[in-house]
């Protein structure tokens, strides 16, 4: 990764706009990482370009952190529509709320798992089945 | 009628008024043909698709009893009637539909003089009976109270207006050519040259309209599986579903017979061992109709399906023009004295 940007969560949107102006046009991946010992959830955006041949080989990693007890962040799906479903998925699995990209119901989890966040480290995988 | 003196039950069955509706082209042969054509369809498709198709039921005959086994399975599976349907329509609709689709066979003659209804407009009777069924189909689709059924029924309704006109026009083209609306006279007039060679435009228009009317590929629009599950028959199960499925094949059977009589020379030419009257020339009709049905089912393995708007457009733009051209051709043939 040639370029890693560590930013505060409230500047995410302006950073995204700057990157878009530079020629980065899509989000390849959005990763949420739970860090319970620090009380944080880290969000890692991998942003790259399709159209600009010079930027194609490069991926910008944008890292930001939100408070684990109040995980709210601005959605950048208006700047990069490509990360809309990734944001919804992160919301389902880690409980991060993306303001500006809200849907009433879970995207990939069943209704029963609403308000449980399987990708947080304190989630215990229920044992079931054979034996 | 028959030269041999037969005991009365047999001679009763051999009377055309009984034989035609009950045996051939009526119920008995119809049932056997349906079983056969479903098997043939599956086998032909399988061969084109480089696989075996039905194989295990009646193995020596290449799985020919598979449709029979499927039929038994259908009849003995649970008949589910969904709660919110219009029950009267839901149950009696398919039966009515089947009745209407089988009704046109009474107008089909097997040889000169061997016919259930001797009429000089038998062609019109058959065509009129053929086009009743889609109205019942719409009723069944509505009664199912299912969105997919409704869409399927409406699609069939749209298509109905696009295929009926070409069917009737191309039939009229042939009637003008033979100067008759009597199927017996039409078939006899083709003793020399078959209608398909006289007026290929009409034959093509009729064949394509027939594909739309019977929901064969590439016009399998009303039952498009990946789009609307099973179209108008989505909610049906068990014996009623089998009746619905049978309806579609029955229509094909009837249309193929009509095509044989009008375009393929009916019972002409007869091989030497068949007498020119009685019911045996019907064999010739059966053979030709089976060939037509075989061609119709073979198209399943070649074409994708059209969209409904494209189907309607083809009906109105192409087939309508084609059948009008067919009428012009007929008139030209008759007026120029080449024929008739």
């Amino acid at each position: 990764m040639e370029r890693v940007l560590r930013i505060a969560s409230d500047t995410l949107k302006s950073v995204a706009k700057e990157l878009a102006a530079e020629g980065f046009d899509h989000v390849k991946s959005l990763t949420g990482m739970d860090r319970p010992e620090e009380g944080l959830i880290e969000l890692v955006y991998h942003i790259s370009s399709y159209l600009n041949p010079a930027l194609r080989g490069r991926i910008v990693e944008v890292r930001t952190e939100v408070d684990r007890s109040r995980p709210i962040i601005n959605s950048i799906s208006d700047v990069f529509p490509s990360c809309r479903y990734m944001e919804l998925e992160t919301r389902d699995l880690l409980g991060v709320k993306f303001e500006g990209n809200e849907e009433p119901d879970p995207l990939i989890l069943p209704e029963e798992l609403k308000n449980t966040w399987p990708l947080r480290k304190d989630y215990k995988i229920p044992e079931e089945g054979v034996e | 009628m028959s030269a041999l003196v037969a005991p009365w039950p047999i001679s009763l069955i051999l009377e055309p008024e009984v034989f035609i509706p009950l045996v051939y082209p009526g119920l008995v042969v119809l049932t056997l043909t349906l079983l056969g054509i479903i098997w043939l369809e599956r086998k032909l498709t399988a061969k084109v698709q480089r696989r075996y198709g039905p194989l295990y039921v009646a193995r020596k005959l290449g799985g020919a009893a598979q449709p029979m086994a499927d039929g038994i399975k259908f009849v003995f599976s649970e008949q589910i009637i969904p709660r919110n349907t219009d029950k009267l329509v839901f149950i009696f609709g398919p039966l009515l539909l089947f009745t209407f689709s089988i009704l046109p066979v009474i107008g089909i003659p097997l040889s000169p003089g061997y016919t259930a209804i001797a009429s000089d407009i038998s062609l019109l009777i058959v065509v009129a009976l053929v086009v009743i069924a889609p109205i019942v189909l719409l009723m069944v689709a509505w009664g199912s109270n299912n969105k997919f059924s409704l869409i399927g029924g409406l699609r069939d309704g749209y298509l109905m207006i696009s295929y009926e006109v070409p069917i009737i026009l191309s039939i009229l083209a042939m009637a003008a050519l033979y100067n008759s609306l009597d199927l017996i006279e039409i078939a006899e007039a083709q003793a020399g040259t078959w209608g398909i060679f006289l007026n290929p435009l009409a034959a093509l228009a009729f064949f394509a309209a027939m594909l739309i009317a019977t929901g064969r590929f590439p016009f399998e629009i009303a039952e498009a599986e990946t789009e609307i599950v099973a179209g108008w028959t989505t909610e049906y199960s068990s014996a009623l579903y089998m009746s619905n499925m049978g309806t579609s094949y029955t229509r094909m059977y009837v249309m193929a017979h009509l095509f044989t009589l009008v375009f393929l020379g009916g019972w002409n030419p007869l091989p030497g061992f068949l007498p020119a009257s009685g019911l045996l020339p019907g064999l010739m009709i059966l053979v030709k109709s089976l060939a037509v049905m075989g061609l119709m089912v073979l198209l399943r393995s070649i074409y994708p399906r059209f969209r409904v708007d494209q189907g309607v457009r083809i009906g109105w733009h192409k087939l309508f023009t084609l059948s009008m051209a067919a009428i012009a051709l007929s008139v030209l043939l008759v007026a120029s004295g080449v024929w008739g």
Partner: protein
Amino acid sequence: MTKSRTLRHLRAIRTGVKHLLFSNRLTCPYPDARQMVSERYRGMIRLNMDKCTSCMLCARACPANAIKMYVMDGKKLPGLDYARCIFCGFCVDICPVKALEHTTLHDVAYLDYKENQFPPEKFAEGGKDPYYVPGGVVMVEIHDKKGLLYKKKAVEKEEKIVKEEIEHVSKEGTET
């Protein structure tokens, strides 16, 4: 796409009819004939109890926790649970003494969950082929025009013996 529509219709129909009349089938009539698989095939696994050194690496390597160690006569031996096994072959690869090996058998189903569990003795037998295949084993060959060809392998003596055995077993089975 300059060719006219009519021509393309005819070409499509011709291709269909060509296959209707002349093409070979790509499918193997499965329960009647069984296709032979390659040497590397990762089928059911057989344990060689004498070679096993009870190192337990196989149990550690298993991604699906399908291998459990059983104690037999004071020696720890692996047993396999086919309800969990995903046939990744990691246990076979990791075994330092090659006590585990793949067989080519793969199409075995069990009626009961319990039968899926292979304690060491059963594991040592490998999977047993419960059915006799009437068409025999067919060799699959790739042909550059026809695709897959299934060629019958000559029935060998062993297979005949197996057939008799299976018939014998099934007869006994019906009597009891």
